[in-house]
């Protein structure tokens, strides 16, 4: 029971971080928030696993390492290399995006309540939190202009999916979890390389310049 | 089938009478104009004179120019053997001979117009163009009339078809249908022989619009053939129309022959009268006249359906 409330507490934190990420205007803060979210996610498996502590522990460590430290560092490096203004340029303003995010959260909660859950997951906020985070990721991806902010959006999207994975921390084999994390890592790695090249070719990370291929 | 005893009489009439028809027409017109006019046999004299004359050919012409009148005349003569005269069946008759009749006429037209174009003269080209253009409508009208008669007679041969009215005309509706067909056929007759109101044969050659202008360059015997053929064509169509205006027989062969001659003469007089009292139509108006005649036949056809 205690575990459950603790987990929900963490998830609420995650949701708040979502809104913050949608609202903030500074890329550095955005990266911080994403990293913090990663750390929070890393803690959750330790709380909700039934058995197989070892795997849960390993996963938690890997998650915290990757999402909390390594990936944010890569992003910061990309940011440093690209000599760009630290402001986030939204396609639509911050307030509208926040409102959309809030709306998305509400919808996710409503939608999640439609779906039947296993008895041991009834009280948990996992499903709504996961969907809300996914929506947040999408919002970052679709409303932000700088390539790097989109990368962060992708990271947040993955976080949301990771949250859903908590439901299956027992069913899901260790190998797959690690594989997923590894893929995420490589993905972000390749993305940051491409960001590097974009910056070199276009002297900016403004994706509005990446619109020469069209009908 | 062919029966030879009528064949002789038939061809005798076919070859002898047509120029006389022209004479009758001219006399009628003269009478209306208050002149004495040429003697009835004048056309024979003209033909005889032409056949004696020399020929002059344009340098641009080829064998088509010479072949045209010859083939036309032969086609018309052959067609003539299919047409029943008065109460008598045609010497040659078989199921489907009506198609042969129409297509022989068409063959004649093909060569007349080809010969006209062979001279390369603008006038004759003009005439040929009008001839073929109006024929499209005239042939449609003619065939529409034939369809009605086929429905009357249940036969596909000219002789039974044109003798059918004798039986059918008792019925009121069919009498109406027959009347429509008769009018249409008469219009076709005028058009095919380029008489007024479609064309005026008696004007000076260059000013006539269709037939005469096509034969500008023909001279001597060839011209004679052409005129002779035209006369035969007129005679044949008049014989066809005759069946519809007096659809009965007297029973006695001699009387029937006389009735036939009188009838054809009467039609010739009628043509003469029309030529005297009517003016020539504007060229643009000719198609509507022919279409009208075709429509009459369609009405006749519809009447046969009820």
């Amino acid at each position, binding site marked *: 029971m205690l575990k459950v409330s603790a987990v929900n507490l963490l998830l609420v934190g995650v949701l708040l971080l979502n809104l913050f990420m949608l609202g903030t205007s500074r890329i550095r803060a955005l990266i911080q928030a994403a990293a913090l979210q990663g750390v929070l996610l890393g803690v959750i498996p330790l709380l909700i696993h039934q058995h197989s502590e070892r795997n849960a522990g390993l996963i938690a460590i890997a998650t915290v390492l990757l999402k909390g430290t390594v990936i944010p560092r890569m992003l910061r490096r990309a940011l440093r290399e690209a000599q760009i203004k630290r402001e986030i340029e939204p396609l639509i303003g911050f307030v509208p995006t926040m409102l959309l995010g809030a709306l998305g959260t509400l919808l996710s909660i409503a939608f999640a309540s439609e779906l039947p859950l296993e008895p041991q997951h009834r009280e948990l906020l996992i499903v709504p939190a996961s969907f809300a985070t996914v929506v947040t990721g999408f919002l970052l991806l679709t409303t932000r202009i700088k390539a790097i902010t989109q990368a962060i959006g992708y990271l947040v999207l993955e976080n949301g999916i990771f949250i859903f994975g908590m439901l299956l921390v027992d069913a899901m084999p260790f190998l797959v979890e690690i594989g997923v994390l590894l893929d995420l890592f490589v993905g972000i790695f390749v993305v940051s390389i491409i960001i590097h090249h974009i910056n070199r070719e276009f002297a900016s990370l403004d994706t509005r310049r990446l619109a020469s291929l069209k009908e | 089938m062919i029966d030879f005893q009528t064949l002789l009489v038939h061809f005798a009439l076919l070859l002898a009478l047509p120029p006389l028809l022209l004479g009758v027409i001219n006399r009628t017109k003269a009478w209306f104009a208050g002149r004495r006019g040429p003697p009835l046999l004048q056309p024979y004299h003209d033909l005889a004179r032409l056949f004696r004359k020399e020929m002059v050919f344009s340098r641009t012409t080829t064998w088509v120019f010479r072949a045209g009148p010859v083939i036309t005349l032969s086609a018309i003569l052959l067609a003539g053997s299919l047409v029943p005269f008065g109460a008598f069946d045609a010497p040659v008759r078989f199921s489907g001979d009506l198609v042969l009749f129409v297509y022989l006429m068409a063959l004649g037209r093909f060569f007349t117009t080809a010969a006209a174009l062979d001279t390369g003269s603008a006038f004759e080209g003009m005439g040929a163009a009008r001839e073929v253009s109006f024929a499209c409508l005239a042939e449609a009208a003619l065939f529409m009339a034939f369809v009605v008669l086929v429905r009357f007679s*249940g036969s596909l041969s000219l002789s039974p078809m044109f003798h059918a009215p004798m039986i059918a005309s008792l019925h009121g509706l069919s009498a109406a249908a027959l009347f429509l067909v008769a009018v249409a056929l008469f219009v076709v007759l005028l058009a095919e022989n380029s008489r007024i109101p479609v064309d005026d044969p008696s004007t000076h050659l260059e000013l006539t619009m269709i037939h005469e202008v096509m034969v500008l360059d023909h001279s001597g015997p060839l011209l004679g053939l052409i005129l002779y053929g035209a006369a035969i064509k007129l005679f044949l169509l008049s014989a066809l129309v005759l069946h519809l205006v007096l659809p009965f027989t007297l029973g006695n062969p001699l009387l029937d022959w006389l009735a036939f001659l009188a009838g054809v003469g009467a039609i010739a007089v009628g043509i003469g009268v029309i030529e005297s009292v009517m003016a020539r139509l504007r060229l643009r108006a000719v198609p509507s006249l022919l279409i009208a005649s075709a429509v009459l036949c369609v009405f006749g056809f519809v009447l046969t359906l009820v």
Partner: protein
Amino acid sequence: MTSMPSAIAIELAAALCIGLSGAPGCLRRRMRAGGQGTATALNLIGSAVGFAGLVLHARGGETQILLLGSLPVGRLAFALDGLAALFLIPILLISALGSLYGSSYWRDAEHRHGGRRLRLWWGIMGASMMAVVLARDAILFLIVWELMALAAFFLICSEEERAEVRQASWVYLVATHAGTLCLIGYFALLGHAEGSTALWPSLGSDGSDWLPTSLFALGIAGFGLKAGLVPLHVWLPGAHANAPSHVSALLSGVLLKTGIYGVVRVCGLLPDPPIWWGAVLLGIGAVSGVLGIALAVAQQDLKRLLAYSSIENVGIIVIGVGLASIGRSLGRGDLVALGLGGALLHVLNHSLFKPLLFLAAGNVLHATGTRRISSLGGLARTMPYTFVLFAIGGIAICGLPPLNGFASELLLYVGLLRAAGVDPAHGWAWAGLAAPALAMIGALAVAAFVKVTGIAFSGTPRSPATAHAHDPGVAMLAPMAALAGGCVVLGLFPIAAVPLLQRAVAAWDPVLAIATPPLPVLAPLGWVSAAGAVLIASVAFVAACFGRRRSEPATAVTWDCGYASPTPRMQYVDASFSETLVGLFDWAVRSRRVLPELPGPFPPASRFESEVPDAVLDRVVLPLAGATKRGLSQLRALQRGPVQMYLLYLLLTVVILLMVAP
């Protein structure tokens, strides 16, 4: 009985021989005159073998299927029945004569690039057309059908360096692909109804009524596109006009007939089709005939004129097929025999005189370098043989006695009139209305071909090239002479074709065919021969009466009503010749005119131009296509470039799908 498979085998061997005729040439090194003789020889041999096979088939009994193996979903099934045999004749004839003609018309010396490719596809086309009529399996049929279509495409764009050729071949390609798609639908539906891909099945009439109807519609659309029925004829004029002339001959003489073949098979689908099938076909046929020939009269391009007259002839043939279908619905064997017999006889006839005309046009094009009728003239003097052959073709195509066109049209007239008038109780009177239409078609055909012979061949030359034209060599004249001979023979002795027709009709509708008197009883074919003979005799006689007179007659300049020195430019030209008729059909033909404005009493030199666009292609299809393209290009805004937009599509898709999820 046992001779039958061997007959099929012989036909297939012939097809193989023809199909490979172009291959040896391609094996030679480039730029070396390759295998022209070989190709022609193989074509001739192949068609000889094919005719031998036909003779064998004529001896032997009824149809048997020859199975050679399997395809991914179908079987390699062939069969040779009366109908197929009849359609094989034009294929064999024209592919042989055409290649003979082409061997000197399309020399490698003049056509370095195209030559060997043309011969290759020529062979393939001949073979695939044979396979089309022999095929007895839907998949096999579609394969050879498309092979034929592609071969025709490559033949049409033999001179692809010319823009108009590319345009014409493109229009053809779209049309034929549309047709193929219709046929794919047709055979898919047929397979659904029959449960097999075997051809040609006859459905039980108990099937739900919409299925045969939709099959009929699909079949007529698919095959009608190939046959060139109005309004599906859009590809035909351009393709025929721009292909090499012997290819035009093959297209018009044979390719269109495969479409007719399909239409005939489609009409054989039901044992007792609804009468409106036949009525629709009669209507389509009449419209195609009248409009086709009306447009032909209006044409100013020799080969386009011939192409439109092909549409007219296809219309005539389809009238016959419609009559046969009506006869089938009424259970009247005489109508079936006369309608289908007339149609098939006209198929044979048209495959004689139309190639003849196209080859003659080829001679003219070869000698003068132009297809414009109004710049020709006087060819009767410079190219006498070509003129005679063209005239024979022209008279025949107008259906005038004593040539072959008359016999087939006579059968149709008799059939239509019998349907209207004879035994009215079991008749369908409205069929009678098609007879005047046919008569009008005939008269218009006379107008069209009088115009060509008169303007292009008679008179005086209108251009220097025309003045120095000359007849081609015997290698080009001989095939034409053969075709002309065919026209005369079939015209004088149509009886000769009767056994073929009887077998074909029997293959199409065995039930009614048994109870029907033979064609010569139904139609006066004997009288046709007699009339022809008498006509020729009387012409000879009258001519003789003049022949013995006088020495050389005097010659003079054409009498131009007193004007002493007429020039070639004063002659009547084709546009003015057809002016009246174009005016008469203006509602369909819609000619474009550029009238000169004549300012003041002494106007400067000015010109009058008129052209006749295709009623359907230029006024309906192309504008429609343009509008569609513009409409679709509006949708391109969906892909403007920003990746955010694309990601939004993903999100929306997911959301919508989750909303509609049950």
